[in-house]
């Protein structure tokens, strides 16, 4: 940390977001939580998708990566598996994560790597001027499809371990959610999925609507986030009532991907010293196994 101070690297950029965009709150909460959790910038790998939200990595000191559209999750998993000592955070929007990249979300729920995925959901494609997204309601700009609920989708995966939704208009709760997510991944428990309702003030301003509809499930007496059935039932009920549950919706237990596939007696892939990693014995065995 002390080293960092006098070394000149990229100067974090100023956000490109419109004034009033929900993404400002997301970044603020993220920075605060990282500080609170004492995660140094050089340990942080922040990967972002394509879209307005996909610029967040430029705005804070980190090892940042700007992924291809929809591909932030596989890249983040690759980084985590290659170097599990890094704090790996993937971030993107609802178009990036639920449309072009939806297949990867499914398989990330299924595989449970210890990474955080922040989806800044604004229910439209802001960067390309407001087209309908996978979470836009029916009727928005002649949208003929109803929106998807990523948390309900996540609940159907036995390996899902952390499903939460926050609202940029409720930064206090968002902070708690972000810290929980970080705690979850730092303690190697698996995939922390955090969808954040983050209104787009320019093309689809849902701020007032969402403020009226959000329902803080963390405050509900008797709600048990460890109860998958209850999580599903309440999510469906609330949805039917026109409400959007926010808070720790589900917390489960499942072995993390990296704990299952990394060789525990070896250094992880990225920490091997190239050219002198001492595996000659395995190489000889390989050759022997192909000798007739």
């Amino acid at each position, binding site marked *: *940390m002390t*080293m*960092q101070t*006098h*070394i*000149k*690297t*990229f*100067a974090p*950029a100023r956000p490109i977001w419109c004034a009033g965009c929900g993404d400002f709150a997301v970044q603020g909460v993220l920075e605060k939580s990282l500080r609170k959790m004492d995660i*140094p*910038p*050089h340990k942080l*790998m922040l*990967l972002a998708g394509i879209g307005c939200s996909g610029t967040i*990595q*430029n705005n804070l*000191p*980190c*090892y*940042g*990566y*700007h992924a*291809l559209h*929809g*591909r932030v*999750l*596989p*890249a983040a*998993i*690759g*980084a985590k*598996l*290659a*170097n599990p*000592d*890094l704090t790996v955070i993937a971030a993107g929007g609802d178009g990036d994560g639920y449309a072009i990249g939806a*297949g*990867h979300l499914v*398989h990330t729920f299924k595989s449970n790597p210890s990474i955080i995925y922040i989806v800044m959901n604004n229910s439209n494609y802001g960067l390309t001027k407001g087209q309908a997204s996978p979470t836009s309601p029916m009727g928005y700009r002649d949208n003929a499809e109803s929106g998807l609920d990523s948390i309900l989708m996540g609940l159907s995966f036995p390996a899902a371990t952390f499903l939460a939704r926050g609202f940029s208009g409720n930064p206090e709760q968002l902070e708690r959610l972000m810290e929980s997510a970080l705690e979850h991944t730092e303690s190697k428990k698996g995939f922390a999925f955090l969808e954040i309702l983050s209104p787009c003030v320019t093309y689809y301003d849902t701020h007032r609507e969402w403020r009226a509809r959000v329902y803080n499930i963390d405050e509900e007496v008797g709600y048990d986030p460890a109860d998958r059935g209850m999580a599903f039932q309440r999510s469906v009920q609330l949805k039917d009532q026109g409400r959007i549950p926010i808070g720790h919706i589900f917390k489960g237990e499942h072995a993390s991907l990296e704990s299952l*596939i*990394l*060789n525990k007696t*070896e250094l*992880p*892939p*990225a920490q091997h010293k*190239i*050219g002198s*990693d001492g*595996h*000659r014995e*395995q*190489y*000889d065995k*390989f*050759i022997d196994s*192909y*000798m*007739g």
Partner: protein
Amino acid sequence: MSSNNGRPILEDVNVIVAGQGGDGSLTVITMLAELLRTNGLNVYTERDVLSRIRGGHAAATMRAFTGDRYCIGSNINLLVALDEEAVEKNARQLDSKSIVVYDDSGGPVPSVLPEGTKVYSAPFNRIAMRTMRRELYKNSIAFGVVGRLLGLEDETLRETFIKHFQRMGQVILEYNLEALGLGFHLADEMGIHKDEGLYKIKKTAPEKRLLITGNESVAFGFMVAGGRFFCGYPITPSSEVLETLQKWLPRCGGVARQTEDELAGINMAIGAALTGARAMVATSGPGFSLMQEGVGHCGSGEIPLVIVDCQRSGPSTGMPTKPEQSDLNLMVFGGHGDFPRIVLTPGHPDDCFYLTAEATNLADKYQCPVFLAMDQALSQNIATVEPFDLDGVSAVPGKRVEAEDIEKLGVYKRYEFTEDNISAFAAPGTPGGLSLVTGNEHNEWGLVSTDPVNRVKMMNKRMGKIEVAKKELPRGRHFGDSGAKIGFIGIGSLFGVILEAMEDLKKEGIKTQYLQPRTIWPVLEDIPAFIDKCSRVYVVELNAQAQLAHILIHQGADPGKIINILRYDGIPYRPAELVKRVLEAESGSKIKKGKKEAKLQ
């Protein structure tokens, strides 16, 4: 077959076992190959299957030989045909001296055989059903006859069975041994007695050789060069790279991941590469098409990645089990925008090992995508090769900086402009080396920039890396008479075919020379120089559009000297077929329709 006197010593024999998928052709060939190997012979095997698990014509071919051969020979000495179709499909490879062992359970041998071919018929299928109640033992019965014909001892054949079937359980072993005994009995009835086969096998201690495919060699080359992260999605004919690495990489602390699709595959490998792990993906045409966006991204973001393309017949789903070399354009020119890349072209499993190790080093050094252009035959055929020289391969790290280096520099720019156009890499986790990696155009810091001056400088930096790389990229290998007027150029599995066709042409009094390119992008000086010194060069390719020739012409090769020999029917070349094409072209005769042969303008 009455006497064993005067039997030739087995120096070069080609055997094909053919039937329906699931008939066990591959099992017979695999066991024969193992057996002949232990008798000191070298082997090369090829499979011809359909993209299905059972049914459809399926054949396995084996060549056993002394010395060096790199392909299946021109003439099949022994055809084991388990049905009529097997005879019909393979008759073209037989001659008057060939021998056919035919299962006549379904009818008499079709009259398509060359005159003089000797046929041994027996109802293998019916005997298997009658005696053993399972048709699947017919290949074990046939094996007895084939072993006898090849001059192998009964006891040796029995030992091979024990070695091969024991792991499947005592019951299966016993049934198969019983079937083998039936085979010996049948052979006796046919007059092929013990020690009275076609050949005498001069037993020598086997040379220390590996029996390995190109795909397995690629996997190993990557591993030895420090490759520690691999992603793949099952696709014929590349899946063995994934399977081999899934078995071996974790033992070396690596990760070999089967992803949900090729998009995830290349992007997960990219994620690992970003942290400094050496990464690779392997795929075939359709998967490679899906990966295109990722390839360009590596070019723009300067991310090291090895990409193995085991080419099969395209376009689209094409013919998944058939060899082709028709993704060359995609490797060399694919992806949107301009970016640097290197395309290497190995020609035999040992070459696959060394060039993959090289590719892994080059990707790290030049921070760009490096391709290995394979083809189905090179990927999946099995060959005996000299044991790989592990001391001759080293994993050379690229330009990397650690915390101490950065501390000394006081400044770190991921995309710094440098003399050799290569910017130092600080792996995430390194204190002080914070950076931004992006496919967007960016400045030295990795921040997005559309500044025109920076844009041009940055593009030139990236493309300039290839100019630097040119000095050390693998040059082609020369074979044949260096003064010959007629030249050959061909890559991948054509390597062995061309070498043997040259021998045959020499017997006809035609001297030739051959350049086996090992880098086709960038085009190095060795290829145009080779073309210049010949009066005409046959560029042999497994595709319809002469992709390699066009790439070479695009880079300055003399089109007036290039004659294309193209094949895209999915059938691998036999040396004699290539000789015929060359002789026809040399005499200026007309070529059969459908197999275009044109001088490029």
